């Protein structure tokens, strides 16, 4: 097991390096620079800024310096929010995004697994078809459609929630719903399919023959095994919730990292963009590693292949 984890950790290094390098090159090749904005910067001020940030050195030198700093854990100063470093900006805004992401993830998992198992146990009945139609609708209502619609109904018409902002826990519900429900729909469909497959296997019949109660058979025997594909879907779902948070944080005006990232890209805040992409990249890579390890623990076939 330890060997497997080490192997996967080593594989993560080239991925992170590719992410750093692509971002670096893309940001540098793009037209425009961080010091061009509405108020004209004088040539002297611009020159001194460029000298201060070392932007006049040859590109390979700058790239090398950046890599060394990243290895030390220093993502550099922000070019636009000059009072802060990139590390500070990420540290301030990420907890907000994390809260949003975790609530959405919990909604997706709990609702998705429950609905999927429910539909599978009532296979081909009206309730099964109804549940599956609702999940299909969920898949076709992406976050940027469902989000505004929920605001329209629950904030503007019914006035149950605030339409935007992030002040107290009641503000957490409306933004997490569109993100969570979308993935709940996927998870429900996955759970149903895999549960049906598991229920048709021999060991379920054996369990029933032993006289175990229906609850023990379905929950302890069938459901546990049907969760395997859900674990492997957790990786893509996590990455999806991150990119969904860009939209949600924009719609609900939430001061999270996603909103910062979109703004930084608009403002060509080089270091903030690079830092955020690297941060998200690391997060996704680490999470995928975590998912793979759980999968290897659950299924020995993966470990030894």
């Amino acid at each position, binding site marked *: 097991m330890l060997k497997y984890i080490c192997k996967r950790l080593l594989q993560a290094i080239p*991925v992170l390096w590719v992410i750093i390098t692509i971002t670096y090159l*893309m940001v540098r090749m793009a*037209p425009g620079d961080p010091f061009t904005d509405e108020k004209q910067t004088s040539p002297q001020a611009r020159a001194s800024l460029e000298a201060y940030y070392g932007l006049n050195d040859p590109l390979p030198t700058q790239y090398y310096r950046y890599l060394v700093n990243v290895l030390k854990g220093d993502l550099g100063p922000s070019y636009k929010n000059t009072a802060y470093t990139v590390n500070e900006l990420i540290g301030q805004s990420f907890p907000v995004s994390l809260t949003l992401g975790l609530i959405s993830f919990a909604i997706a998992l709990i609702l998705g697994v429950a609905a999927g198992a429910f539909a599978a146990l009532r296979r081909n009945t009206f309730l099964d078809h109804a549940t599956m139609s609702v999940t299909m609708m969920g898949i076709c209502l*992406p976050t*940027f459609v469902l989000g*505004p619609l929920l605001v329209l109904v629950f904030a503007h018409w019914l006035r149950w929630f605030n339409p935007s902002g992030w002040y107290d826990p009641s503000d957490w519900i409306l933004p997490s719903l569109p993100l969570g429900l979308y993935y709940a729909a996927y998870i429900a469909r996955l759970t149903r399919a895999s549960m049906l497959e598991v229920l048709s296997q021999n060991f379920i019949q054996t369990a029933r023959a032993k006289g175990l109660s229906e609850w023990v058979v379905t929950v302890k025997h069938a459901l546990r095994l049907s969760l395997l594909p859900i674990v492997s879907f957790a990786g893509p779902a996590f990455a999806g919730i991150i990119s969904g948070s860009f939209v949600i944080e*924009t719609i609900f005006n939430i001061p999270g990292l996603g909103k910062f990232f*979109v703004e930084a890209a608009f403002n060509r805040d080089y270091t903030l963009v690079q830092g955020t992409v690297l941060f998200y990249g690391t997060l*996704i890579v680490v999470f995928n590693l975590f998912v793979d390890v759980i999968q290897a623990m659950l299924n020995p076939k993966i470990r030894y292949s």
Partner: protein
Amino acid sequence: MSERYGENKEQVSSLWRDARERLFAHKLAIFGGCFFFLMILFCALGPFIFTKYSYQEINLSYGAQGPSADHWLGTDEKGRDIFIRILYGGRISIGIGLAATSVALLIGVLYGAIAGFVGGAVDSVMMRLVEIMYSIPFTIFVILLMTLFQRNIYLLFIAVGCVEWLTMARIVRGQILAIRHQAFVEAAECMGAGNSRIIFSHLIPNVLGPIIVYATLTVPSVMLLESFISFLGLGVQPPMSSWGLLIRDGATKMSIYPWLLIFPASLFSLTLFSLNFLGDGLRDALDPKG
């Protein structure tokens, strides 16, 4: 093809005929297919038929009116007709969906077929590369690409196509690998067929089913990505319209002009709905095991 083998045509069944029957039995899939086809026709021809308003003509005195006999789906704040803007938006959204899917199809099928056919070290290097690319958060890169460079729709669909080919390559490679060592491939080799002939006229036609199914499901996911980017304001730029852009406009003004959100959002969702049902039906029809 199959007609040649027997006098009694009714008894001859081929893969495609079976598939067609299974597909026609799937009512929702047929409905989805018809809806999508009509939607394409509607968006492609609509602007030639309904020429009363243009998608960009601003008429402030007609600003933000609800649906009426004149403006069927109402107007936006600048007095532009929503119905026409939805038609033009559909052209862009569906167009990008189809174009980027073709890009993904071309790269993915070729890449997967070569990896599966050649096998060995080449295959493991090629698949390793796909795996590395899989773990890169591509949506973030598409956003980056669109913000840093000019917001140009050709760049958008190339970027989207480049993301979507990975899964296609994996599926095709798996399928090719499964049939690579069957007798008919050996027979073709014995008859002196070259590698490219084996790949293009023997292997790919045999894995066409899963390719069609996955391509159908790629179209809605591309449209989703395009609208997502346009929603963030990074894709298609006004006065041009796209469904993502219309939903963005609607979302900012929904408290006072709800129709600006409701019409584009429901049309967009219905189109995704129809494509997903069509893909589901095709999967049952062409790939019963999958």
